[in-house]
């Protein structure tokens, strides 16, 4: 198992290096940071001086090696736009994104699993068919459109929920959280639903498919034949066996939740890393963009690792197989 973990970590580092190179290269081609920094009225001399100071005239490999060396030390340089350390900017905004992703993942998983189980158990019922068809609408609606419509209905027309920002936040041990106050909870609701809807339909459909598969298994018949209640059969036996693929997909989806937060955060002005990224793209703020892409890569790798480890917890067969073969 240790060998397995080490191998995965090495793989992850390789992935990160490639990702780092791609993200670095990509922004070599985009825009000119100098204009954004100096504004319209700067002189030629200032521009030349700035290009030199930023090292923008060095060959690309030199810039990249410098970039990796600094990144390893957690130093992604300074934001061209905000003139502050990138690591600090990201750390400052990460809680907002993680919290949004977390809440929407919870919503997506809770609703997705419940609806998935419901539609699987009542496979041919009217309600189940309706939910299945409706879920396709959820998959067919782009995230940005959902966000705009939610704002239109719940903020502008009904005036029930805030349309932007985090509202009131409460600090727990340096982590600014929305979950500590009523206003904060109200503020996180619309963005979390917007972000979670697509994932919810995915999870729901996945749970349904897996559940139908599991319900065909002999051990479910056997559990029924032993006189277990429908609830015990469906939730005690079937659901648990459904969870393995659900955990994988949900884990992988968490990465895309954080990435899709770009769209949601910009619609709801949610002050997270996605919003930071979009603003950075506008200002061609290369250090922030590069760090963001690396962050997404790192998050994905970590999530993958956690998913792998979760397998061990959920599925006893893997535990002994891995223990035996490695």
């Amino acid at each position: 198992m240790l060998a397995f973990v080490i191998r995965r970590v090495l793989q992850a580092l390789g992935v990160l290096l490639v990702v780092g190179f791609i993200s670095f290269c990509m922004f070599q081609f985009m825009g000119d940071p100098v204009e954004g920094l100096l504004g319209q009225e700067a002189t030629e001399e200032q521009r030349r001086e700035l290009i030199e100071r930023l090292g923008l005239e060095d060959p690309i490999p030199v810039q990249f090696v410098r970039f990796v060396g600094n990144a390893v030390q957690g130093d992604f340089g300074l934001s061209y736009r905000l003139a502050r350390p990138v690591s600090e900017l990201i750390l400052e905004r990460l809680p907002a994104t993680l919290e949004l992703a977390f809440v929407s993942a919870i919503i997506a998983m809770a609703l997705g699993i419940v609806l998935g189980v419901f539609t699987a158990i009542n496979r041919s019922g009217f309600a189940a068919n309706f939910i299945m068809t409706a879920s396709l609408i959820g998959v067919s609606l782009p995230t940005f459109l959902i966000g705009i419509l939610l704002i239109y209905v719940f903020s502008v027309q009904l005036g029930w929920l805030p349309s932007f920002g985090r509202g009131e936040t409460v600090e727990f041990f340096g982590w600014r959280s929305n979950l500590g106050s009523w206003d904060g909870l109200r503020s996180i609701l619309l963005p979390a639903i917007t972000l979670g809807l697509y994932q919810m339909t995915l999870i729901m459909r996945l749970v349904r498919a897996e559940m139908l598969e599991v319900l065909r298994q002999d051990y479910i018949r056997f559990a029924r034949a032993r006189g277990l209640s429908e609830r015990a059969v469906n939730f005690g036996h079937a659901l648990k066996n459904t969870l393995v693929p659900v955990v994988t997909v949900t884990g992988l989806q968490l990465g895309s939740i954080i990435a899709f937060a770009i769209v949601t955060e910009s619609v709801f002005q949610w002050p997270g890393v996605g919003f930071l990224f979009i603003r950075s793209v506008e200002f061609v703020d290369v250090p922030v963009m590069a760090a963001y892409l690396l962050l997404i890569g790192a998050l994905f790798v970590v999530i993958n690792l956690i998913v792998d480890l979760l397998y061990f917890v959920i599925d006893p067969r893997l535990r002994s197989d891995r223990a035996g073969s490695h």
Partner: protein
Amino acid sequence: MTSTLTSRLAIAALTASFAVVTTSVEAETLRWARAGDSLTLDPHAQNEGPTHTLAHQIYEGLLQRDMAGEIIPALATDWAVTDDPKVWRFNLRQGVKFHGGEEFTADDAVFSLKRAMKPTSAMKELLASVADVRKVDDYTVDIETVGPNPLLPNNLTNMFMVDEGWTTANDAVEPQDVANGGENYLVRNTNGTGAFMMVSRAPDEKTVLKANPDYWGKGEFPLEVTEIIYTPIQNSATRVAALLSGEVDFIQDVPVQDLERADAQEGLKVVKAPQNRTIFFGMNMGDSDITADNVEGKNPLADVRVRKAMNMAINREAIQKVVMRGQSDPTGVIIPPFVNGWTAELAAYPTPDIAAAKAMMADAGYADGFAIRLDCPNDRYINDEAICQAAVGMLGQIGVTVNLNAQPKAQHFPLIKNKETDFYMLGWGVPPFDSEYVFNFLVHSTTDKYGSWNGTRYSNAEIDALVVSLATETDTEKRNLAINKIWETVQSEQLYLPIHNQILNWGMKDNINFDVQPEDQPHFKFMTFSN
């Protein structure tokens, strides 16, 4: 459906107005939103509108522009040119205290102005003419310029005063080195003399200010706002939604299409005023051949008839009516009316005449038209991309096939500065309210010091000399004649295709009394509330 919707709206409006009534009894909290945030709190590190707006609430200069754009005293009570025409004398206000309790004196003024002239300052160009700043006594300061500079006060309205002791103690004598990613204490801490003090700030997210209890201007300004909560909301639909749903009280940039809705909504109003900014197209008329067209070996834009024909094809009123919903002031010159040098004659523009324009095109040898690329920003001016799109259609009617390249300002502006575009959109504001500023940047041929934004490649030694002479010409009448002469050339050469002057609009709760400031700089100490 409709009736329930209406009743819900009515309820929403009712609660909104109820909320206004309850909050306006004692403490007036102003929830303010605009598209962008301040870039830094260091008052000398950025020369940028939104940054200055926030700084103006906290810091003050020797003088300031009021809500009408007039220069009024701030930390200086009066100023005048001394017997030496190169020296301006400023008498400072006495008994002013910084938020930290330090008294404001001539030492602070000298220190602040010198700080603003340091290499890392973004304000140094505005003080380029300053040779020296001297303390005369504790409450008197002299500024000596290289030559006589009658417009010096115009350049001091955004020149903020910091406390010397506090700044030095916190090791921030040099302004934040933005270009080099620098950081100093002043970037996130403030200590001004202004009407408001910083409570908390999360950049791009939320900034909270409260009234300064010891403000010197009590009695001079209304000072009804006791707390400011400032949230940048970049997405315009979200920003409007926030105003409509009553989550903010005041937004600085209402999208033109939502003005009517915001104005019509119970409890909200929109106030408007012409902005000090003109939107126009520039054309490369100087090069003998250009790359962005489909004509080999020739530059169609070099022919003044082509430029005139294009000018004639633009239907400015259609743009005003449809694209800008009436929220613009069509013009034929690239300066707004409050700028010295503007005349109604200059601002006249031709009625669109496709037939005549086509005839001129044929005259110039382009009866079949030509194709050209138009570079356009999509995140800088009000409806910039839509204006460009409209122009594409209009120019298409005289045979000019326009290939639109709309992109963010970060990519657009370098094209102009690097002379990589032959046809582009630009907007220009005139903070000193004088034509000289425009000529320096947009008309003078491109040299080290001048014409850095002149994308037309126009070069005329006679005009260049005239432009340079304006800086030192103290005789107002002669100076104005020169300005007029330059404008005549610009217009007859059709150097630019002016579109319109932007109209600023601020959306706010009904009970707020606040006029639009022509530089888009709200000073909240002027804001009043009626119940």
